[in-house]
């Protein structure tokens, strides 16, 4: 039991860390509040499912299934998230602070609503079950172990690439753009372009994580991609202390561990389980409030609050 708790924490923790690390790039480095994180995650998951699924038959209502190998679906997930980031980022990034937060939130809700109502994309509210995925048993590996390893690999690759991206003149440019856009423009920097680049670059790993999520759960359905995912990632980011990649990962792991822990408590009744889930929500919220209250926020707020 302890082993399965650790493994599932590692698997979901690493996967959601990809989201947190990307959000950290957008917020702590780019100064952009993206309240629609789940949309890029969903775009990746759906793209993976659509590219790997067999063409529709029988009761299927979805219109496309390309039946391609998993790696093609995985790549498609990154491209889909990137494309959605371009589509949503280009018109909205000139908005600042809370306006950007609200508009990205609105875009995520629009995508959610489309996935829910447009059955030709992914069977509407039913979703697509039995999403195809590489079978670790073929290599003689335990299922959870293999996917936990894959999630960790994706997380480490993302962290390493982001670190490399920012430890460069480009990182300096990104920091300058966030610190003072007018001053950056006055030395000839195209800040609108930098903001869009960061927005799009950080969406790509989120798309990959979406594909991985589809493989792990073998299901994509609108109910899995609600605004709660976005809030979850924000809470994890706040828990981790915001500024660093390591902090983002630790915060996510801690939050996932906490949730998995609640999940393994055996309950006698349905009502008991339900109360526990609600209490978990309350504790998560309180943690969030306390962390935001006691963090050394002053510097960050100055940067991102404008």
């Amino acid at each position, binding site marked *: 039991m302890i082993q399965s708790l650790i493994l599932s924490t590692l698997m979901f923790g690493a996967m959601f860390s990809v989201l947190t690390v990307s959000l950290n790039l957008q917020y702590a480095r780019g100064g952009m*509040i993206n309240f629609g994180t789940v949309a890029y995650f969903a775009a990746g998951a759906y793209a993976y499912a659509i590219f790997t699924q067999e063409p529709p038959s029988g009761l299927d209502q979805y219109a496309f299934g390309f039946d391609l190998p998993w790696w093609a679906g995985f790549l498609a997930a990154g491209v889909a998230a990137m494309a959605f980031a371009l589509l949503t980022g280009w*018109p*909205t990034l*000139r*908005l*600042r*602070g*809370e*306006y950007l*937060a*609200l*508009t990205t*939130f*609105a*875009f995520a*809700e*629009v995508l959610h*609503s*489309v996935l*829910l*109502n447009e059955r030709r994309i992914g069977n509407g509210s039913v979703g697509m079950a039995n999403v195809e995925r590489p079978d670790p048993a073929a290599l003689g590996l335990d299922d959870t172990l293999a996917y936990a390893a894959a999630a960790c690999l994706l997380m480490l690759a993302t962290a390493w690439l982001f670190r490399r991206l920012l430890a460069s003149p480009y990182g300096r440019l990104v920091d300058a753009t966030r610190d003072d856009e007018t001053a950056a423009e006055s030395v000839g920097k195209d800040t609108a372009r930098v903001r869009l680049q960061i927005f799009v670059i950080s969406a790509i790993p989120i798309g990959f994580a979406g594909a991985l999520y589809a493989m792990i759960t073998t299901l994509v359905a609108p109910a899995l991609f609600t*605004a709660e995912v976005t*809030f979850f990632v*924000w*809470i994890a980011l*706040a828990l981790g202390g915001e500024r660093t990649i390591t902090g983002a990962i630790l915060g996510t792991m801690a939050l996932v561990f906490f949730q998995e822990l609640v999940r393994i408590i055996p309950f006698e009744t349905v*009502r008991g389980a*339900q*109360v526990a*889930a*609600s*209490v*978990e*929500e*309350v*504790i*998560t*919220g*309180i*943690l*969030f*409030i306390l962390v*935001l*209250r006691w963090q050394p*926020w*002053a510097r*960050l*707020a*100055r940067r*991102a*609050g404008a």
Partner: protein
Amino acid sequence: MTLFFQFVLTGLVTGCFLILATIGFSFTRRVEGFLNIAHAELLGVSAFATWGCNKLLGWHILPSAAVGILVTAFAGLAIGRIVYDPIRKHGPSVMLITSVGVAYVIGGTIDALIGTGIRTLDIPLATSYRFWGLRITDYQMMVVALAILAAGSLALFLNHTRTGLAIRAMSANPELAASRGIDVQKTSRATWLISSGLAGLAGVMLGVIATLSTDIAFHQILQILAVAILAGLGSLYAVILSGLIVGVAMDVSVFWIPAGYRPLVAFAVVILVLLFRPQGIAGSASGK
């Protein structure tokens, strides 16, 4: 054609409800300076407090509603004092993100206390009236009347009372207001009471015109955000106008496209407006 006008009429009622739900949100934004995502949860607090008095204790709806509104107003005040006041110095972004945590706490508490399932208030069934072939129920008319009453009295309050003028001064320029001898603490308390009380009123209305489940608050915040963004997070009159626009757009859209797209229509309107007028329909160029 009658059907079309029926949708317009329903849309206007929806719009009036949205106005009630958004005024408090927009008011907090103006005076406290941040977007309070947890505002919609206050609608839930009020709706379920009313339901508790009405259904569990067997009270009449009127005292139940009064208790619901009062509980909500003071809950909002308490949250404002305990949670938001200490972090004001961190700026609006941190306050916005914190309010998500507050929404979790309130939502989780309601979930734990009430549980899943659909609840209804113990009130007489709605009576339908017909005007020129258009149907409207007495409860719907009440929503419209209350929206007009709430907006009107808020406007009077802000323009003609000492506290109201202090609130306006504070929303325009907090530092200047403080230096002119306005009691910032007291004004902030009044703001929390009023905006939460309005959320309370909207929550009662929600219980009256719809069925209650514990996830209603979350659905409301989407529409409240839509109205607030459209209004440019600004004046009372902009909120009224954009509430009606969003309400009518959502309900009339059902005439052409599947009803499942109703929330999408609200946000489509918002996105379109933001693309052309980043500060909302009535926003000023300064934006802040």
